[in-house]
Structures are given as structure tokens and as C-alpha cells.
């Protein structure tokens, strides 16, 4: 069974846009970013009831955004995140729990730009250690979402394999975010068929679709960079990707529409959002895959033991800190390039020599926009 789902959070415009779909019994499951409300003491009871109702039906999935899987150092915030996940998982019945691939560049936790890390045995071990802790806290299947941002073609082409190996010990799954994939297809001028075959498609249990925005590149005049900002309707191209991907993912269970509430302020935007949902639902229906049976326990994590003290990687931490400083303080692309070439990241596994200048420029924009957090 594939559920046509909405990413629903405690967000007035988003819930206003979704209410007619909920009333019409169109929403088959919901995804909730449980860690966005860790600091809120009193979640309104009606929202708790909504979560419980979907949870009891096995149709609630938890989507974390703040764990920063690959930060070199383990920080108290990650302990707190796991503690709250354990509590939330006990209170609500998540069908599965997910986080994002990569880490945040910020000098402080939860700031900066989302970035990938080099695929090395040490860094793989770090990610696997943390995923096991997430699985232990969640007590349900766990998965990771593919990243939209990439510095180089190598990073783009490697992400599928990276995710596959990372998820193996927890028997985890992938959220294939098709807008993120489209960002990479556009930004690196790739064909869908060439890129999708690099992903372990039998591990895809969830698909995301969303909109985003364009940014003019100064480094490559005439080139537009696609950004995953979730602030517009779903583009035609992403619907086409959904149609092409549905037959390729045999273990798909949730297809989720995401949009941020601030871009749903007026009635016209809310109407387009509902129209996007109904089009997504129609594509799922017409795929012929909707009613197929799920293999029981397919992504159930095995019981694993892990060290009491989380793995850390001090060398990775120092490199991440240096990169964050460069991204947050460089006044232009040339300065950032010069600093990178003089940094510990030069001629290292980070392969900064292969980074596309227009993507480094984009990373500068993102990191400087969000360096003070949000």
C-alpha cells in the first residue's frame, strides 16, 4: 500500500491549507517533524489528537531535521535529541523515523549550510554509530533523506552508494526527495536515468516532493542554481520525476508533499497546494503500485549493541570547523577558494579541487544567510 501523505506541522497556514484535504479524507498519512517542537511545552491537544489518530493507524512518520548526523564531535544537543526522540516515540506510534544525510556547517549546532562529507571508512563508521543510536531510541525502522546540495559531481554520484552502506547495519531505508534529486540533475546537468540507477531503489520507502527556488550564479553567468527551499508549488519536472520513479521503487510506502507555511499565506497559494496534493495522489493511483502488499518487517532494525560513548572524529571536526569559518567569513568566491586551498581540506578526502565554483558560491550564500541560526 502506498499512502499519499502530507508533511504536517504545527503551522497555521499549512494546517489551513491542509484542512479541506483532511476533511475530505484524502490525506492517508502524515509526516511530522517532531524535533521542531522539542522546546514547546504545551502542544495544543487537538494537534496531539491528530498525531495520535494517524499514529494508531500506523500512518504517522517522524522526520527529524536537527540531529546533524555527521558532525565530527558529539555534542550535548544530540544526547538531548535522542532522549526526546525516545519520549516522542513512546508517546506517538511512528511507523518510521527519518533524518537527513550530511551535517550542518555551522560553528554552533544547527547553523550554517547542509553539506556532505567524504566517504571514508572512519566517517562511515561515525554515521553508522549514530544511526544505531537513532534506531535504538526510535524502536522502529529508520531512514535517511538524500541531500539537495552538493559541491561536486563526485558527491552527487556517490550519494546513493554512501546512503546504502550507511544504512546497512540498521537495515534502514531511503527517503528519496525528488526535488532534491532534481536540484542535482539541474545543477550538475545530469540525466535522470543516469543518476537514479546509482541509488539502491529497493531501499526507498518514502518519497518527498516539494517546490523550491532559483538563484542566479555569479560564478557562472547565465547559470541558475536550483535551491531546495520548499517555498513554492511543485514544478512540472518534479511531477514527471515522480511518475518515472514510482515503477522503480518496489518497497515504497509513503509519498509526501512538503511545503512551508510561510508560502501558503493566501487562499490562492493554499488552493495550489491542495491541487498539488491531488495531482500527487492521482499519480500514485495511476501507477498501479498503490495496493501492492508490504513485506512485513522489511526495514525492521536488528538488535545491535553499540559503545556507551558515541564515536567522534576530531580530525573531521577540525576540518568542519575550518570549512564553516571559510564559508561564513569569506567576502567573495575568490577569497573562499584561496582560503580553501590554504586549508587542511586541500588535497584531502574532501576533494575541494573538484568543487564546482558556482556550488561553492551557493554554499557561501546559504552559510552566511544562516550563520546566526534561525
Amino acid at each position: 500500500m502506498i499512502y499519499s501523505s502530507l508533511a504536517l506541522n504545527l503551522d497555521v497556514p499549512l494546517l489551513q491549507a491542509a484542512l479541506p484535504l483532511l476533511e475530505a479524507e484524502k490525506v492517508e498519512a502524515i509526516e511530522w517533524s517532531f524535533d521542531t517542537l522539542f522546546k514547546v511545552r504545551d502542544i495544543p491537544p487537538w494537534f496531539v489528537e491528530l498525531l495520535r489518530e494517524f499514529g494508531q493507524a500506523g500512518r504517522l512518520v517522524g522526520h527529524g531535521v536537527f540531529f546533524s548526523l555527521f558532525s565530527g564531535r558529539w555534542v550535548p544537543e544530540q544526547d538531548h535529541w535522542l532522549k526526546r526522540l525516545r519520549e516522542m516515540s513512546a508517546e506517538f506510534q511512528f511507523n518510521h523515523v527519518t533524518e537527513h544525510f550530511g551535517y550542518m556547517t555551522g560553528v554552533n549546532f544547527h547553523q550554517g549550510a547542509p553539506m556532505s562529507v567524504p566517504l571514508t571508512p572512519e566517517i562511515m563508521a561515525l554515521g553508522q554509530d549514530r544511526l544505531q543510536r537513532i534506531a535504538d531510541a526510535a524502536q522502529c525502522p529508520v531512514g535517511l533523506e538524500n541531500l539537495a546540495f552538493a559541491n561536486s559531481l563526485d558527491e552527487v554520484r556517490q550519494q546513493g552508494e554512501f546512503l546504502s552502506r550507511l544504512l546497512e547495519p540498521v537495515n534502514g531505508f531511503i527517503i528519496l526527495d525528488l526535488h532534491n534529486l532534481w536540484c542535482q540533475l539541474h545543477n550538475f546537468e545530469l540525466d535522470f536515468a543516469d543518476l537514479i540507477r546509482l541509488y539502491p531503489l529497493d531501499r526507498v520507502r518514502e518519497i518527498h516532493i516539494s517546490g523550491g527556488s532559483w538563484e542566479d550564479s555569479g560564478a557562472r553567468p547565465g547559470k541558475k542554481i536550483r535551491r531546495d527551499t520548499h517555498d513554492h508549488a511543485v514544478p512540472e519536472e518534479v511531477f514527471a520525476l515522480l511518475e518515472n520513479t514510482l515503477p522503480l521503487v518496489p518497497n515504497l510506502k509513503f509519498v509526501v508533499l512538503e511545503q512551508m507555511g510561510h508560502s501558503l499565506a493566501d487562499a490562492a497559494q493554499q488552493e495550489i497546494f491542495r491541487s498539488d496534493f491531488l495531482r500527487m495522489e492521482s499519480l500514485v493511483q495511476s501507477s498501479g503500485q498503490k495496493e501492492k502488499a508490504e513485506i512485513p518487517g522489511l526495514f525492521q532494525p536488528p538488535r545491535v549493541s553499540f559503545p556507551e560513548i558515541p564515536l567522534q572524529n576530531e580530525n573531521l571536526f577540525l576540518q568542519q570547523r575550518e570549512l564553516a569559518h571559510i564559508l561564513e567569513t569569506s567576502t567573495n568566491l575568490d577569497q573562499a577558494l584561496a582560503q580553501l586551498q590554504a586549508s587542511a581540506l586541500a588535497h584531502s578526502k574532501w576533494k575541494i579541487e573538484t568543487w564546482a565554483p558556482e556550488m561553492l558560491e551557493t554554499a557561501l550564500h546559504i552559510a552566511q544567510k544562516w550563520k546566526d541560526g534561525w
Partner: protein
Amino acid sequence: MKLSKSILAALAVGLTLGSATTSCQKMDLKKEFGQHQCTSECGENCPNSEPGPPPPIDNCPACGMG
């Protein structure tokens, strides 16, 4: 999925009253951990024990900043 009428009604009322906030509140724990030294006077509101609500903001990049 069919939802009970009471949940839908409560949802509609809750939205009318605006008792929701943004989905994109930062888990701003950096201000709480490591910066506050607990004392014997720390109580329920101690930032090291349970975080309080942050001011609502929008345009959270974690929801789609890549």
C-alpha cells in the same frame, strides 16, 4: 484517512484561534546547554532541565535550505 468529527472540529477551532505556531522553530539549545550553571536554586524553569518555548519565527532553513 477518515478522521473523527471531533478532531476535525477541534482542528478548525484551534486554527481559528491561532493556537498553532510555526513548524520551523529552531531547537535553540545552544543557549541552554553549557552556558547555564545549575545552582541549588534551579527549579522547574532551569534551562538545563527542560527547554522553554522559543519565539516563533518563520522561514526555517532546515525545512528546505539546500
